[in-house]
C-alpha cells in the first residue's frame, strides 16, 4: 500500500479527510445558470474548487431511422488541459470519453427529455440537442459535477426560433425543453473498508473501486463501476443506498434555473 493511501485510510478510521470533511460530506456546491449567453442554455457548477461549464446548442436534423419520431441527444466532454496538469491537448482520451458517456447515459436512460416532443416532422425534421461539458479546474469528482452541470444547462435552455429549417440563433423563444426527470449522479469511492463521496484528487489516486450511481425518483437509471479493485454485493448495496441518499442533497441546489 502506498503512503498516500495509508494516510487516507488512517484519517478515515477517525472519519476524517484531508480537507476536514466527514466521509459523506459534500464540499460547497454552487450552480450558476446562463453563464454563456450565446448558448441556448448553460450552467457553471462548482464542487469546492472543482469547476465545470456545460452548454447546450440546438440544431435541426433528420431523426435516426430507428427512431423516426424522436429528436436526438449528443453529449461531449472535454477534460481541458487548463483544468489539470495531468490533462493534455489533443483528441479526447479514454477518461474524457468515459466522462461523456456516463453523463450521457444518466440523462438518456432516465428519459430526462421527452424526445418525442422534439420531433417536428416524422422521419424528416427534429431538434438535435448537443450538451458540451468543459472542465475548468479539476480538484476531484469531475463526474458528479459534470452530470449536474449538464442537467442544469438543460434546465436553463430555451428553444431558439425556427424559420423553416433555419435556426435563428440568438432569438430564443420562451419555450423550455420538455424535461420530465432530474437524474443525479453520485460517485461513491471505496478506499480500504471505507466509503466516501465527493473525492479530492488525492483520494481519486488512492481508491480501489468506485461506483457512480445515477438516480431519479428512487429509480437507478445508470451505473458505472470504476477502478482496478472489486466490489462485493454487500458493497454495492451500501453504495447504492449512499448514492440515493446523497443525490437528494445535490437536488436541492437545482432550484431556480433562471
Amino acid at each position, binding site marked *: 500500500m502506498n503512503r498516500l493511501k495509508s494516510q487516507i485510510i488512517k484519517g478515515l478510521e477517525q472519519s476524517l479527510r484531508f480537507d476536514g470533511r466527514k466521509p459523506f460530506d459534500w464540499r460547497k456546491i454552487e450552480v450558476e445558470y446562463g*453563464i*454563456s*449567453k*450565446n*448558448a*441556448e442554455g*448553460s450552467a457553471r457548477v462548482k464542487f469546492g*474548487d472543482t*469547476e465545470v*461549464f456545460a*452548454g*447546450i*446548442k440546438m*440544431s435541426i436534423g433528420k431523426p435516426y431511422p430507428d427512431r423516426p419520431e424522436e429528436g436526438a441527444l449528443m453529449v*461531449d466532454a*472535454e477534460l*481541458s*488541459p*487548463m*483544468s*489539470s*496538469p495531468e490533462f493534455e*491537448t489533443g*483528441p*479526447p482520451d479514454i477518461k474524457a470519453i468515459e466522462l461523456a458517456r456516463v453523463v450521457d447515459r444518466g440523462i438518456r436512460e432516465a428519459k430526462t427529455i421527452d424526445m418525442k416532443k422534439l420531433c417536428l416532422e416524422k422521419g424528416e425534421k427534429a431538434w438535435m440537442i*448537443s450538451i*458540451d461539458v*468543459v472542465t*475548468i*479546474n*479539476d*480538484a476531484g469528482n469531475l463526474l458528479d459535477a459534470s452530470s449536474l452541470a449538464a442537467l442544469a444547462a438543460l434546465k436553463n435552455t430555451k428553444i431558439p426560433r425556427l424559420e423553416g429549417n433555419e*435556426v435563428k*440563433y*440568438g432569438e430564443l423563444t420562451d419555450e423550455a425543453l420538455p424535461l420530465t426527470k432530474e437524474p443525479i449522479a453520485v460517485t461513491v469511492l471505496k478506499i480500504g473498508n471505507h466509503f466516501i463521496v465527493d473525492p479530492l484528487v488525492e483520494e481519486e489516486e488512492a481508491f480501489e473501486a468506485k461506483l457512480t450511481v445515477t438516480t431519479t425518483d428512487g429509480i437507478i437509471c445508470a451505473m458505472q463501476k470504476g477502478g482496478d479493485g472489486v466490489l462485493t454485493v454487500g458493497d454495492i448495496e451500501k453504495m447504492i443506498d449512499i448514492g440515493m441518499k446523497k443525490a437528494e442533497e445535490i437536488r436541492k441546489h437545482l432550484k431556480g434555473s433562471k
Partner: protein
Amino acid sequence: MAYPKRLDGRKFNETREIEAKAGVIKRADGSAMFRIGKTVAYAAVYGPRNLYPKFLQNPREGIVRVNYAMMPFSSKGERVRPGPSRRSKEISMVTEKALLPVLHLEEFPNAVVDVFIELPQTDAGTRCAGICAASIALADAGIPMKDLVAAVSVGRVDEQVLVDLNYDEEAFDGKVADVPLAVVQRTGHISLLQMDGEIEKGQLINAIKLGQETLKKVFEAQKKALKEKYHTEGGEE
C-alpha cells in the same frame, strides 16, 4: 453609409466594459479571467515544466506553447466543433508571438510554459481577450517577464476610426477594417498586428495610435487584477 454613432452608444475610443481577475483556476500555476463586453476568456498557465519528447527541448531557452479554444457552445451561431481548427491553430500561434517579447525565456532552458485559453462566451475580439487573460496568467504564475502585454482590436467602420469592434460592427454593411493589435506596456511596441477588411495607410496609423492610447486602461485593469489577488491572499495569511 456613414457611421456617426456607434450601434451600442460607445464613444469611438471607448472599449466595452472590462473585468479582469487573477488566480481563478486553483490547479494551474497561474490563471486569469478577462471579460470585455460579452467576450469572456479564461487563461491557465502551467510551468515552467519538463518538455517531452526531449528533442523539442532547447538548451538555450525555454519554449512557450499557446492553445486557444472556443468552447463548443460559446459562439453566436452553430455549435463549434471541439478540437483544433485551422482558425484556432493560427490564433494560438499569433498569441504565442504576441506574448514572446516580454518573456525571459533564457531563465528556463529545456522547459516549457503552457498557456491554455478557453472562451465560454464570444462576441468578437476573442484573440485580444485571450492575450489579455494570458498576460495576467503568466504574471500570476511568476514567469519572469519584462512587462505586460495587452490587446484590443482597432479599425474603421465607414470613415470612422475606432477601438474594440463588437460583432455587429464587424458585420456592418459598409467599409470595415478589423485590426487586432497587441502592445507591450512600457515601450508601446506592437507584438500582434493582423488586419482584414479595407483601410488606408493614414487611417491604419491613426487606428494603431488610438489603440496604444486605449490600451493604457486595459493595462490598469490587468495590474489591478494582479494586485487584488495578492492583496487578499496576504490578508488571509
